[in-house]
């Protein structure tokens, strides 16, 4: 192995690591706010990548049709749950949220497919993020007060359902998008592509944005507060059901961005998301599902190990990455004192 290969592997590792870091963040965020171990995070990546690739190719993506369907089912849930206290304002809010916005995005997708890279990018993030809250309403809100285990089972079910829906709405064909830019710069012997730079910039911007959101805005603080003390949050009037929806919208948005960043680098299939999500999950677990900086560092480590493993023992790269979890879990289980789940 010479220096050039080493640099390539490092670059590859950091690029993938950055994306795992984003996914790890999404998992930490969702768990902290809702206690859901969010297995379907990877599906948002696949949906994001496929949506972006199809929009770029001038097609209307399956998610544009899936969104109004999800929204409609969520609307039925809400109408049933609130059946005895439906007001005009409630119907107006629901109508905008669950009918106007999804159909508006479908219309936009039909009009703007293939028009420009920016339009595809914005639409992808908008459509996939909008799926998050409806998914929460349908799959998790009815179970919001149940144990972590019940929520995990629901998350596994959701993952299976979303993979199946991905097959129905996107087909079995893999998709690959064009790079965001064909800009490239040489760093010594190492060519750094615009796509790589986009990954780094997007990751840093998202991390800065999340930091600003959680530290500076009332909505962000309300999300943190819900994570710290759910009952305390309700006692000050924070709608914890609403915070679950915001958390899933953020997670879906992060997934969509990751998908957009990945789509030009590798071919994405309807079921590719799971393994990518799992690597974010490894990072999140190393961070104890609680620490953002630890998760970020772990994500970079996962990316680097994966990259070197694929060079030295390509067939075993997944095995090596996931085997990492075992010593980490062992150390964590000895180092941290066990706390019973609050009920």
């Amino acid at each position, binding site marked *: 192995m010479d220096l050039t290969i080493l640099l390539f592997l490092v670059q590859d590792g950091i690029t993938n690591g950055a994306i795992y870091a984003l996914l790890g963040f999404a998992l930490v965020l969702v768990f902290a706010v809702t206690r859901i171990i969010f297995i379907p995070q990877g599906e948002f990546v696949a949906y994001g990548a496929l949506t972006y690739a199809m929009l770029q190719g001038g097609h209307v993506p399956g998610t544009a049709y899936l969104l109004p369907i999800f929204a409609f089912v969520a609307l039925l849930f809400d109408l049933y749950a609130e059946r005895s206290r439906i007001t005009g304002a409630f119907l107006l809010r629901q109508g905008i949220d669950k009918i106007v916005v999804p159909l508006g995005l479908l219309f936009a997708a039909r009009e703007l497919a293939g028009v420009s890279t920016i339009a595809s990018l914005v639409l992808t993030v908008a459509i996939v993020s909008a799926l998050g809250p409806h998914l929460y309403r349908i799959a998790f809100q009815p179970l919001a007060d149940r144990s972590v285990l019940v929520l995990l089972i629901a998350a596994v079910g959701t993952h299976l359902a979303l993979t199946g829906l991905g097959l129905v709405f996107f087909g079995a064909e893999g998709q690959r998008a064009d790079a965001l830019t064909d800009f490239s710069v040489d760093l010594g012997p190492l060519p750094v592509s615009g796509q790589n730079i986009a990954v780094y910039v997007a990751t840093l911007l998202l991390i800065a944005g999340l930091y600003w959101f959680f530290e500076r805005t009332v909505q962000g603080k309300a999300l943190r507060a819900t994570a*710290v*003390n759910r009952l305390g949050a309700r006692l*000050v*009037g924070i709608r914890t059901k609403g915070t679950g929806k915001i958390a899933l919208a953020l997670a879906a948005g992060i997934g969509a961005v990751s998908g957009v960043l990945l789509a030009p680098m590798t071919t994405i299939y309807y079921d590719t998301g799971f393994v990518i999500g799992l690597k974010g999950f490894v990072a999140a677990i190393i961070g104890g599902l609680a620490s953002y900086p630890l998760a970020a560092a772990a994500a970079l480590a996962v990316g680097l190990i994966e990259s070197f493993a694929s060079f030295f023992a390509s067939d075993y790269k997944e095995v090596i990455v996931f085997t990492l979890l075992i010593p980490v879990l062992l150390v964590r289980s000895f180092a941290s004192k066990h706390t019973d789940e609050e009920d």
Partner: protein
Amino acid sequence: MSKPLLSLSNLSVSYGKVEAVRGVSLEVFAGEIVTVIGANGAGKSTLLNAAMGILPAVGEQTFDGAAMGRLEVEDRVAVGLSLVSERRELFSSMSVEDNLRLGAVRFSEREAQARMAGVFDRFPRLKERRRQEAGTMSGGERQMLAMGRALMAGPKVLMLDEPSLGLAPRIVADIFTIIEDLRKDGVAILLVEQNARAALNAADRAYVMELGEITMSGKAADLANDPQIERSYLGFH
């Protein structure tokens, strides 16, 4: 007498098969301090948690003349009912300022800042500690923060569950002074206390709870002089 702000009538709360609160009726009028006294396990905290909507209850509940039995906790806060729970339920890893800001989560930044200034006037100690993490403060400071955070929402009725629990006598006196100040400023108080003497001294009216039921009620001053109450709850002094 005018209509009560908070009215519970024939309220029952069960944990599984155990009825922790049985057929309790209670009213709080504007400008009043009302206390519920009773032994540990009499169902006082359960009663407050049910009134806040945390525990499901059977019976009629109204607030300011409107039925509130089906309102969620969050909606009860919005109509003007707040609870400072026995466990304070602070956001322990967040700063004093953030805790207070979240108390007024429904309000604009400007409105929240104005309210925070009011809370700091009432609790100067919190102003000194505004950047400190809530979890690192003393028991008395945490109680003040919990009360301050509840006041940020602008409640018409403030329910306090054991505000003096675990606090030094001097701080208990401070807390009771603040409770009386709050009443003067138009906040009605529903106070649950094991420290029956302090509670009866501060309150206008009182209810006595035993094994989930109200066994006596009346003017706080009358109950304070009742020989049976004196024997059961006030001890020999």
